[in-house]
């Protein structure tokens, strides 16, 4: 069985490279012996390409059919699926794009692909329960306590208008030339109601959020002050209002001294 399957799989991946199984094939219908493994080869490529199409709709829109399918074929040839769940395929597409020529013309593609892959990742993930506000009582007095944020929250600090580019497939007549070329700082997240959303933040807010992820709460708040100008206190309260209202604080952790 092992030898048979290895021979069959080799033909499936490279129908032109005949092996000892080639002479034993009885093709379906009017297919010729030389044609039959192309049915399986084509099916393999169509299936994996269709997952890339589904996950990376905006990357597809930017590249157009011909270029996207060419990039997809190159990815499929170099990245066999290791998963039993076909829906997980494409997990390295972002990294693959970083090293691909297409990023010369479209340097934002890896970030765009990252958003698209994480969108479907969040879609399938269970929504963590937000923390009970009573549990936050000690956070302002105990210098070792810090916040745990939802794992379904991902920050983006981009030099490109990623959100508008990501939205392009919803606008048939719109293209890159119609987009104002501005920086985008935002979070992609799944809220406590299970909705996947984005929320734009100021750079100072993102910097504080980063500190809150890595440091105890009181330390983070102290260090975070350098990112805010005088009169910007409201940005801090806005950040916490956003995190609380969307249920993105899910626990408390204790940092070691």
């Amino acid at each position: 069985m092992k030898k048979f399957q290895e021979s069959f799989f080799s033909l499936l991946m490279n129908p032109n490279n005949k092996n000892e199984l080639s002479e034993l094939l009885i093709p379906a219908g009017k297919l010729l012996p030389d044609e039959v493994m192309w049915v399986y080869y084509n099916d393999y490529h169509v299936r994996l390409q269709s997952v890339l199409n589904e996950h990376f709709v905006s990357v597809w829109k930017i590249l157009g059919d011909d270029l996207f399918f060419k990039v997809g074929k190159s990815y499929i040839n170099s990245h066999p699926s290791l998963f039993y769940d076909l829906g997980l395929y494409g997990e390295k597409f972002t990294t693959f794009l970083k090293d691909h020529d297409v990023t010369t013309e479209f340097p934002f593609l890896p970030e765009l692909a990252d958003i698209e892959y994480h969108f479907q990742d969040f879609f399938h993930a269970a929504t963590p329960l937000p923390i009970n506000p009573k549990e936050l009582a000690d956070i302002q007095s105990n210098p070792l306590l810090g916040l745990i944020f939802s794992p379904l929250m991902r920050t983006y600090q981009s030099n490109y208008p990623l959100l508008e580019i990501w939205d392009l497939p919803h606008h048939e007549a719109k293209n890159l030339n119609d987009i104002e070329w501005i920086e985008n700082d935002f979070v992609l997240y799944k809220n406590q109601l299970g909705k996947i959303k984005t929320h734009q933040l100021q750079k100072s807010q993102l910097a504080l959020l980063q500190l809150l992820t890595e440091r105890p709460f009181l330390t983070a708040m102290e260090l975070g002050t350098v990112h805010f100008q005088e009169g910007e206190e409201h940005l801090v309260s806005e950040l916490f209002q956003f995190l609380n209202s969307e249920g993105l604080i899910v626990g408390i952790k204790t940092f070691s001294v």
Partner: protein
Amino acid sequence: MDLVGIGLRTSHFNEWEDSPPQEINYLEALSENHMTSKGRPWAILEKLRENYQFSFHGVSLSIASHAGPRLDYLQVLKQFIDTFEPKVVSDHLCWTGLPHSNAHNLLPVPYNDESFLFLRDRVLEVQDFLKRPIALENLSAYVDFKTSTMSEWEFWKKLLSETDAMMMLDVNNVFVNAQNHGFDPKIYLDAIPQNKIAQVHLAGFTDAGKFLLDTHSKPVYPEVWILYRHLIQRVGAVPTIIEWDEDIPELSVVVAEAQKARAIIEECR
């Protein structure tokens, strides 16, 4: 009441959440689309379980793989099954790739004693792990092998008689294979014991010119309805699912296909 339904597909989630159809009582979920998800695909099953009986149908068991089914797959599948307790759990009599590379296709084996002995043992192992019988589906295959020593239906008959496995009898696949490999589909259907059919699948194929391709992209063809009627006349009512996986139409169109199956069951009483 006879169980007749359709395959649950992501493109219909909104309709299932807002106004689930009352005309059917049976729903088949693709195991891999739900069992690793804790998001909407899982939540929708929790919602629908109150009003529909479930069948879980997989594509990645790879029971014929020389390396055997993946343990991590079986573990997740068992948890999934134990949570929802579906009426039928099924996959395909096939292998899907090698351990380091999944082709995500339903790949055939030669119909001979070596395959039979290998599969008989795998069926027993899988059923022992899942603690329940499993139904296996007949494939649409685009190649046969000179190393086959028995017909496809003879192979099935042998496997079904020597294991507790049930058959997920895909009537469309029987028709497609009959056309592609040149046999009488009624001989195939008549060979399958009535008490071994867990469920029937119906779908539409695509005529690729030189052969028929199992695409699940069209309504059930008239020739396949004739075969379905032939089967039901012999075995009586069997749980039946309409599959539609490409160019998926509105939910009502798929439900209407299921209604046709129910009508045939009624007419054959």
